[in-house]
């Protein structure tokens, strides 16, 4: 069969008037008769509308984008048309459109970069200074409860280790450092029953060390170094600035990615992005703060350096160690900086804890 005959409705694209027409379909395309004249639409030029609700029938138009339409409702006719080589679903993108997308795409990239890496950080750094301290403390306490709830799930009460002697040792260590700087924050230190080698500070002076960190250390001065580092974050208001930055960027990333996997994914993305770029400067400052406190307390910062080196060695031999501290790219640099800042050297110093107290701290999660 070299052609197929059916009927259709023709709209000329100029008026809303429907004209019933006889239609002939062949390999060359479709043609239809209006007022005794046969009009041909060649196959290469023929396009159909897609994602239509009707499964029989088809709306045909021409590539040149005039608004004329030919509607065929006969399923056999459309099947016949599809059987020929065709470009029915091909759509051309004009060069003007491509250019627009390229230009605005660049502008959008620049805009997002500007806001995430310049405007949001600058604003959060400035505004964080104007948040009243008591609000920051309230915020920190609230955040702490959230974190405990997220990490522990139902075993909420047991997450914080409460070995009595260990707690006393921890307080002694914190006091040794605190006596060497001024701060308006009440500094609360606690240990979480978690295997990770990590520590973090939340806004308002709440600091958490993980059990894994305490176990990985070989001397109390190493833990004191980490504690000094976290105190540095607190005093520099890093947790507050960071949370403002990530919350500020989360909404924008939501705008860019939509909610393709719910708000959850966007938030995780914002966190990842922020903590990666936040750490460089803030981490160095917190280290410097820790070194200064060590110098004032007459403690050897070299011990802190040793700790970084153990972590590096462990990561080398056991690739599966999930240690956020160890995953920091510049561990050797941090160790070198700590050693360079050491003011005690081989001289004698009063240890942070006695060997008995150090043992109690290491067992802080056992007694409770």
């Amino acid at each position, binding site marked *: 069969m070299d052609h197929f005959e059916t009927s259709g409705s023709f709209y000329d694209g100029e008026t809303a008037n429907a004209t019933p027409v006889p239609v002939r379909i062949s390999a060359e395309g479709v043609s239809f008769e209006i007022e005794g004249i046969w009009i041909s639409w060649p196959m290469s030029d023929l396009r159909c509308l897609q994602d239509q609700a009707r499964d029989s029938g088809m709306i045909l138009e021409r590539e040149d984008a005039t608004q004329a339409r030919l509607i065929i409702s006969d399923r056999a006719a459309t099947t016949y048309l599809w059987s020929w080589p065709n470009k029915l679903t091909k759509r051309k993108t004009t060069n003007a459109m491509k250019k627009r*997308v390229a230009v*605005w795409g660049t502008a959008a990239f620049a805009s997002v970069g500007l806001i995430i890496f310049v405007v949001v950080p600058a604003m959060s750094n400035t505004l964080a200074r104007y948040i009243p301290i008591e609000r920051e403390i309230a915020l920190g306490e609230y955040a702490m409860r959230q974190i405990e709830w997220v990490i522990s799930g139902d075993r909420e009460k047991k997450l914080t280790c409460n070995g009595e002697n260990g707690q006393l040792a921890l307080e002694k260590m914190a006091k040794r450092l605190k006596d060497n700087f001024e701060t308006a924050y009440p500094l609360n230190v606690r240990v979480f029953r978690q295997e990770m080698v990590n520590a973090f500070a939340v806004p308002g002076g709440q600091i958490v060390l993980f059990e894994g960190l305490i176990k990985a250390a070989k001397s109390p001065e190493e833990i004191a170094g980490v504690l000094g580092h976290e105190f540095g974050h607190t005093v520099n208001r890093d947790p507050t600035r960071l949370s403002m930055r990530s919350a500020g960027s989360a909404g924008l990333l939501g705008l860019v*990615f939509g909610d393709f996997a719910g708000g959850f994914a966007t938030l995780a993305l914002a966190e990842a992005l922020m903590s990666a770029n936040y750490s460089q400067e803030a981490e160095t400052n917190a280290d410097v703060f820790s070194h200064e406190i060590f110098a004032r307390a007459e403690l050897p910062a070299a011990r802190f350096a040793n700790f970084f080196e153990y972590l590096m060695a462990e990561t080398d031999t056991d690739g599966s160690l999930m240690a956020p501290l160890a995953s920091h790219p510049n561990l050797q640099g941090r160790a070198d900086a700590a050693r360079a800042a050491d003011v005690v050297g081989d001289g004698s110093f009063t240890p942070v804890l006695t060997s008995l107290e150090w043992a109690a701290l290491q067992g802080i999660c056992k007694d409770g």
Partner: protein
Amino acid sequence: MDTEFSTTDTATVSYVGRKKPLLRLALWTGLLTFITVGFYRFWARTRVRKYFWSAVTPDGTPLEYNGTGLEKFLGFLIAVAVLVVYLGIIQILLLFFGYSLFTQAETFAGEFVQTLMFYGVALVTLPLIYYAQYRARRYILSRTRWRGIRFGAEPAAWGYVLLALKNLLVTVFTLGILLPRQTFNLEKYRTDRSYFGDAQFHQGGDWRMLRPAMKQIYIAVGIMALAVVVFFSKGLPDFEQINHGDMEGMGVAATGAILFQLGVSWFYVGLAIYGVASWRIMANHKTLNGTVMFTSHVDTSDVIMAYVFGGLLAFIFALIAALIVGVAFGFIGSFIPIDTYEFDLDNAGPIIGFIAGYVAFLIFFGAVVLVAIRQPILRNYASSVVIHNASALNEIRQRAGDDFVEAEGFADALDVGAAF
């Protein structure tokens, strides 16, 4: 009005969309959107819209949606380039107020001030929202065809912003009593600037005709007022006493509280009823070119039922899909060994299963919402319409195209875009 209708020269609108093909389209485009970390959403939205438009069939000829995904993507890029700095600053300010006024609900006044500041900053985006809504509507109309003839709207977005803000202010200051006036004025502004080809739409009637649609809202407010009277009828309840578990004499206050909850629920249903009823009344007073008229008998309860049962169905369906997908992926994942301190696990099964289930839930939920809520509602609205003096439509001529670079980018960015 009825005397002007010709009894024979009418056309009905049918809706031919079905569940299965729409579900297939929605699931497939949802999956593509997930795989492309969200970037397919412009094309997904366009394809679903093409489906819905083509299902609405006035007088036997389907509507066409001629927008493209690329066009929407371009609109998104423009919105990002223009709006991101503005929105970023607003967001940080909101956060700052949130943090500086952070309280743990210890003082009611503190919370109140915080909320007020929050909305104060949020209010800055309001003019932009109205602007974006008008522009989005204009874009969608300009991409809608019927019988090869374009729809369209006049470029009048700033006038719309002014009118909308003025009417909103009046509504707020009259405690919502003049809501029908706001609804009508905005609809009239939009309608009077809308075209099919060279024919202009016109919104007749006036805002007072919408008052009956407010009935359920008034009843709800009445219930809430009664609840407040009952709650305080024995003086201010002693909250200290309640906290100590001493409920003696609290029966009346409890009745008041329950009554208030009822009033709130009634209010939401009332709002939904108002939406449908006011649409119907205004449709009955619309004309095209002064000759073509419309009547609609859209049923409120059908629309509300679609929300209630459709929502329930979407949740159950998505949950089942999530369980099946989650278990299947969890089983596959259980063959992948992992070694981590963070979780007490020796294989990746539970993690992979959870993530897959979560993703499946989101994709299925979105798809079933389209099939079980959006489509039935659209069917109700569309098939309720009858066109009178339909033969006058044949006289209507084409209008010029409307090049619209930013599409609905702003409306999408501000999250005030169309439901589909």
